[in-house]
């Protein structure tokens, strides 16, 4: 029902998109109703579209509610602070994709819908095309997502179609291809070059849509597809494959953090921090251990929320700077929220990102000292990068703590941070559904 609602409302809002006063509230209302429908649905409730089954799992419910709320926060910011009428139907389309990807139980169908979702924001990436390189950035994103998407889809189709008596090496190779395909889509290092151009040229709200909503969904979809595709038992038998998965994740964690320390603007800092966190999340999933999987998925979700908070604040700070360097004096509330978002991206206590990061680092140490040390160094580098930018924002002092006029990003970011704090104070509600998924994942990994 929520899927049908979102999918049906997207074209309606597309037709009404130029009447922002109608399109924006309608989008928010649709997202609110869809979120409520998912939140109130009973566990394991299932339905069918043609013969494709959709089932609500505890993780599916948690992730859908979290991602639709983040989506609503971005829509609110676009409506009140940075009107872009094409954004509203895109947001509903992305909402429908989030619901479909997290509820579908057929891996090939899940992957196809995921690919559609990752292409939807392309329209939002381009703006004022004669003044910037946003078209080039969008084309590069299109190329990377198409390449990663189709390679992964082919690997999955082959894995499904090959008889089980084929050589083990074929399935192992398919898992590696699938992993590289997801790395391309997530823009983790070394497949991150298009993300740098996107960070520089695309609007902050479009970046929030991609890095705040779609990348966390992709990480969860990766774990879900691996589990449903019955490829997992092939991986366990070869430790070298696991080393490769952990190596790419670790490289991205530390590489993203290094790039963040050299970031010259706010948006690039956020994007590099997200790349680092996604690397850490992939390490978590790649450990194939309960705490690692719980930590990896928790990091992905918390990173999405914090990245949205920082990107919306960065957009406001840049607009108020009028071409000069962003300063807290022009938008104190947005600056405060930006700094608070950094706490979430670093995974410092007491925000909800902390337990996830703690679990992953712990499991990384249990695998290899170098891997654990790399993740800790990545966290320290992110801390330095965030502090450097925070000091830069407040370098000219703050004449007054009075909030700026129309502090939309400040209020929205404040609400996101409050939710992350609440999650950190009572982490059980957040981690328990992920733990249920991890248990299922481990059962698929080592079937009796």
């Amino acid at each position, binding site marked *: 029902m929520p899927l049908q609602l979102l999918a049906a409302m997207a074209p309606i809002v597309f037709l009404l998109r130029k009447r922002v006063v109608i399109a924006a509230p309608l989008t928010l209302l649709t997202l609110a109703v869809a979120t409520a429908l998912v939140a109130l649905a009973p566990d394991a409730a299932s339905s069918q579209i043609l*013969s494709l089954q959709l089932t609500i799992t505890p993780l599916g419910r948690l992730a859908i509610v979290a991602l639709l709320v983040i989506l609503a926060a971005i829509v609110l910011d676009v409506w009140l602070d940075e009107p872009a009428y094409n954004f509203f139907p895109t947001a509903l389309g992305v909402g429908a994709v989030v619901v479909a990807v997290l509820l579908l139980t*057929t891996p090939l169908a899940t992957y196809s819908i995921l690919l559609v979702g990752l292409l939807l924001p392309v329209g939002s990436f381009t703006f004022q095309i004669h003044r910037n390189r946003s078209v080039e950035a969008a084309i590069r994103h299109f190329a990377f997502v198409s390449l990663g998407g189709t390679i992964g889809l082919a690997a999955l189709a082959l894995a499904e*179609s090959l008889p089980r008596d084929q050589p083990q090496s074929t399935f192992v190779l398919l898992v590696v291809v699938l992993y590289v395909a997801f790395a391309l889509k997530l823009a983790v290092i070394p497949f991150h070059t298009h993300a740098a151009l996107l960070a520089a040229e695309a609007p902050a709200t479009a970046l929030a849509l991609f890095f705040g909503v779609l990348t966390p969904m992709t990480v969860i979809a990766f774990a879900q597809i691996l589990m449903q595709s019955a490829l997992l038992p092939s991986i366990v038998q070869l430790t070298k494959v696991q080393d490769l998965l952990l190596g790419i994740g670790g490289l991205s964690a530390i590489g993203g953090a290094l790039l963040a320390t050299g970031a010259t603007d706010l948006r690039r800092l956020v994007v590099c921090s997200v790349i680092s966190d996604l690397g850490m999340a992939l390490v978590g999933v790649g450990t194939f251990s309960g705490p690692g999987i719980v930590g990896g998925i928790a990091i992905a979700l918390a990173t999405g929320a914090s990245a949205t908070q920082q990107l919306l604040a960065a957009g406001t700070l840049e607009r108020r700077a009028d071409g000069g360097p962003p300063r807290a004096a022009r938008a104190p509330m947005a600056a405060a929220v930006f700094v608070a978002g950094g706490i979430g991206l670093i995974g410092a206590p007491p925000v909800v990102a902390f337990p996830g990061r703690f679990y992953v680092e712990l499991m990384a140490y249990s695998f290899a000292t170098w891997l654990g040390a790399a993740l800790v160094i990545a966290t320290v580098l992110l801390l330095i990068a965030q502090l450097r930018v925070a000091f830069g924002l407040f370098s000219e002092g703050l004449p007054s703590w009075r909030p700026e006029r129309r502090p939309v990003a400040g209020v929205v970011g404040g609400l996101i941070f409050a939710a992350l704090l609440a999650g950190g104070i009572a982490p059980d509600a957040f981690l328990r559904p992920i733990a249920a998924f991890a248990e299922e994942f481990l059962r698929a990994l080592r079937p009796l």
Partner: protein
Amino acid sequence: MVLLAAVALTTLIASGATRLRFTALAFFAVSIAANVIAAGATTAAQAAVLAVAGLAASGILFVAARDGEYGEDPGWRLWVATLIAVVATPAAFASFRTITADVPELALFPSDNATVVVQVAAFWLLSSGTAILVTARGAVRTSLGALLMLTGVQLLMRYAPGPQLELTIAVAWVEVVVALTGAFLIVNERAVRE
């Protein structure tokens, strides 16, 4: 085997075309040849979905061209992409083919649904698409590469268990979304250039 040659030839024509409208027509020919190759493993409903998806994707690119002149000269990229595809196809086939004890019959003329022929066609399309995507500079060749790869995926999916029609529809939607996104970027890229 003749159909396999048709897939290879139409792919090369699509890759070598300098006009977008010609590329779109050549892609439609690729789509038809690929679907005929796997006709034995395709139901009537699936064939209808695949035909509509191929037609829609090429139609979208055809309209996006706006006139017969617009396109992207592949230049050296055509040769590099072809070379990569020629090397990658046997490598992919050797690594991922279905290994059976039976020796497949490779008929010259009739439409042949033997797994080996369908897999070779799929790997050729995937390799060509990857090579075109990797060497692409603009939206035209990026769209073409992605669409060729999706055509290859559709071939591989014929042998996957599960709800075939639903999966065909899902990937057909991806094909249409890729074509729409490509068309959007082609129009924007042209606006920037002009």
